[in-house]
């Protein structure tokens, strides 16, 4: 009786698990096959297989320039978020234990603020101070929403660090900066890189703020959005498939890097 109940609940749990996974993955199983069709319209299942829409994407100046703009913005945003976030983690680590929790909440708050509010706020500021339609300002806004993730990822690595390693470097003769870079930084580096990759895609995927801030230019998500509204061309499916593949590879790479580093640290 007991055994049966355990068996049933285990079955129910795993059915639920796979149900959720299928639900999350479902779009991928639709989008990727559709992208390899040569027909004029989005249609599932795809007929007439081919890579026509990938060719369209790579040969269309509008799509390419949107991609390049997104890339530039994401690069700048992730650079800023990674540097500022990492420095925040270091100062939290060195600061007084009493205020650490409070400051961590404050720094990671942008995670729970809806992007639309951030977008509105930045937009108002942009108009007031005359930097509307600036991709640098957009990168700054993206850095703000990406930084909490950097703080969380690098902060987790920092908490695993043995603080006596840096003390060892100090007592062996290294000044504070030298000790940080020779003892702590190498162990944090994998997490910093992983956080940078994550921050990059937070910016690369972001639509709402970009929509508010830019008028004369277009990022890739803006282009996809515009495309979907107007003509629903299968190019979107091709772009999405590419995005899925690139994102997956980068994220898995970053995660592996982070894990391997964690393995090195643990003794």
């Amino acid at each position, binding site marked *: 009786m007991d055994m049966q109940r355990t068996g049933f609940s285990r079955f129910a749990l795993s059915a639920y698990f796979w149900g959720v996974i299928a639900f999350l993955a479902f779009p991928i199983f639709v989008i990727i096959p559709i992208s390899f069709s040569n027909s004029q319209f989005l249609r599932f299942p795809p007929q007439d297989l081919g890579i026509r829409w990938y060719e369209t994407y790579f040969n269309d100046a509008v799509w390419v320039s949107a991609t390049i703009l997104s890339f530039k913005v994401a690069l700048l945003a992730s650079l800023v978020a990674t540097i500022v976030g990492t420095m925040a983690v270091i100062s939290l680590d060195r600061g007084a234990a009493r205020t650490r929790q409070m400051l961590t909440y404050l720094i990671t708050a942008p995670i729970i603020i809806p992007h639309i509010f951030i977008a509105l706020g930045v937009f108002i500021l942009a108009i007031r101070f005359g930097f509307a339609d600036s991709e640098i300002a957009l990168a700054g806004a993206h850095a703000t929403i990406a930084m909490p993730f950097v703080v969380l990822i690098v902060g987790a690595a920092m908490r695993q660090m*043995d603080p*006596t*390693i840096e*003390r*060892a*470097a*100090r*007592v*062996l*003769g*290294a*000044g*504070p900066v*030298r*000790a940080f870079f*020779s*003892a702590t930084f*190498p*162990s944090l580096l994998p997490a910093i890189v992983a956080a940078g990759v994550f921050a990059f895609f937070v910016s690369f995927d972001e639509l709402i703020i970009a929509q508010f801030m830019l008028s004369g230019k277009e990022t890739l998500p803006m282009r996809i959005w515009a495309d979907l509204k107007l003509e629903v061309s299968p190019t979107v499916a091709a772009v999405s498939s590419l995005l899925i593949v690139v994102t997956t590879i980068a994220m898995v790479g970053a995660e592996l890097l982070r894990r391997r580093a964690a393995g*090195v*640290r643990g*003794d």
Partner: protein
Amino acid sequence: MSGAAVSFRGVSKRYGPVDALADFDLEVKPGEFMTFLGPSGSGKTTALNVLAGFTHATAGEVMIDGRSVGGLPPEQRNVGMVFQSYSLFPHMNVFENVAFPLRLRGVAKAEVARRVGESLDMVRLADLGGRMPKELSGGQRQRVAFARAVVFEPPVLLMDEPLGALDLKLRQAMQLEIKRYHAQLGCTIVFVTHDQGEALALSDRIAVMGEGRIAQVDTPDRIYDYPKSRYVAEFIGKTNILTLEPGNAGAVRIVELGCDVPAQGALAEARMISVRPEKIERAAGRREGLIDFTARIDEVLFLGDLVHYSAVLPGGGALLFQEHRGPGATVLARGDTIELGFLLSDALPVSGREAAATAVGA
């Protein structure tokens, strides 16, 4: 390399309401092996950190080789330090770890190689220079940490529970190694441990610590034979604490044994005496001056050549004693009633809090 003197002059460190160190005074002689011994939380690490420069004292002064170092950051104090967690740089191989302090001091390349080689030789790891720390065993990592701490020939070496993470057998082997390093290097060593056996085996002198204060500083044999307080007597080895009260004219009464002894010398003022388990023997021989009493064997811990007993006194208290098994000696059994005794000269007056329990330190 030779050692430098280290002095703590009235050093205090407060963390909020906690006195991690209170009025800490200690003079360590050049080349001495000084151990801070105390339970967890007694301020040993704090004292070491103040000396290394990781913690600023709330009051007082720390001196190395006669110079106050209070204003110097750790990197300018020129002391070596070994941590319990080894604290090797995980991304550097053994050679680079040991070379680190030399490179910081701008030592020429050939000289670096020579001195790293010498240090690794001393810890018997000459072949492992190319290994990464994660490819080493715990004992090997500790040796590398040691080589790294002494390669730049610091006059003072600090060790914070360096053997705490090793298993018993390895710990004992490493104790011998550390003794050898000390003899070879001649530097002053300030060693921290909560293991009294380790402290007794290694040290020239031991500072027994409790609640941020020094309870007693002395050589291992004097700490063991002449503990000044109940706290020290109980922390170092096992002992029996017996209570005294005024007895008949010219005598004091040992409460737990219910017998009077002459109130000579220090005994007249003392309120407690400490008697080590090995100082108590069977009283059958009626040795001259033996204070004897009857007890019933309660527990027997048989160790082969050595037997530990716990006996119940007529008054209800417990007493620890032990016997080496000499020729013809029998082993007592639980429930046996036996005459025991000790010499008054082996009973040491101690100060400190009194407590209901008689046998302690188990």
